[in-house]
């Protein structure tokens, strides 16, 4: 069983104070993985809730805070990929189909982040989860490979392809120097 602090927050006055702490500490991480992957608030919340319920069921096998974080990232990533695969009817928008940034986006850098988010959301699912884990969670390719049961070189290659795709679509429009920094 994990040895976390037992100070339960006001929201969680339950018989599970330790689980509650893990929930508080990791809820933004799990929710953000799902949100950046699916770009759908309701679906992201549902996935995040399901992931924490699964954690609750598997609580006895958790060994440390690091183990919980590893487990949550792994389960959240897999669930996100499963949801997209199950949505047969949902047509994925390809990078080529996304509208070019408008003149407004070109001048207002504040919109760049949301534009980039949209672009990440349109990447193929495997590349998308790699980008989310790499740039949202700041994970190294080796850690990502362990979480997704992938070869490290495959992770690096796929990440590099994803970055090339994103750069190709945004660099020349927004910051010409990006295309030169590859």
């Amino acid at each position, binding site marked *: 069983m994990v040895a976390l602090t037992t100070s339960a*927050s006001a*929201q*969680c006055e*339950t*018989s*599970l104070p330790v*689980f*509650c702490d893990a*929930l*508080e500490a990791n*809820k*933004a*991480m799990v*929710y*953000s993985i799902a*949100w*950046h992957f699916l770009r759908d*608030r309701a679906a*992201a*919340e549902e996935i*995040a*809730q399901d992931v*924490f*319920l699964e954690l*609750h*069921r598997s609580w006895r096998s958790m060994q440390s805070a690091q183990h919980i974080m590893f487990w949550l990232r792994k389960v959240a990533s897999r669930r996100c990929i499963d949801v997209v695969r199950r949505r047969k009817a949902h047509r994925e928008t390809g990078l080529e189909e996304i509208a070019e940034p408008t003149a407004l986006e070109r001048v207002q850098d504040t919109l*760049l*982040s*949301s534009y*980039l*988010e949209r672009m*990440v959301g349109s990447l193929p699912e495997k590349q998308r989860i790699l*980008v*989310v884990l790499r*740039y*949202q969670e*700041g994970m190294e390719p080796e850690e990502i490979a362990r979480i997704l049961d992938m070869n490290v070189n495959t992770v690096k290659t796929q990440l590099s392809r994803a*970055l090339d795709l*994103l*750069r190709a679509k*945004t*660099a020349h429009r927004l*910051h010409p*120097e*990006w295309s030169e*920094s590859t």
Partner: protein
Amino acid sequence: MTSFEDQLRQALTRKEPPPNFAARVMERAKRQESVLAVGWQWLSGRAWTPRLVPVMAALLLVGGAAFYREHQRATEGEAAKEKLLVAVRIAGSKLQKTQQQVMKIQFGRVNQ
């Protein structure tokens, strides 16, 4: 880290889940816990539960045997169907050859 990667990192910063997210999870977790507890209590509270084990085993055995028999029948049926299809194919090609021979003979007579 290039500026593009920095921008990407900035775009993908963590977001807070909606308010009451944790409360909703805890509520579902409690419900899940109580369902499990009730189920376990119900099972362990029954004196006849151990007596059910051989019955369940027997049912499982009978069910398994029936499934196996059905599977065998399906496999045999598939094999028979395959054989029949091969036979039909052979008969078809023979028939075609015979038809060609007959046509040849007929054409030969007409030309004479």
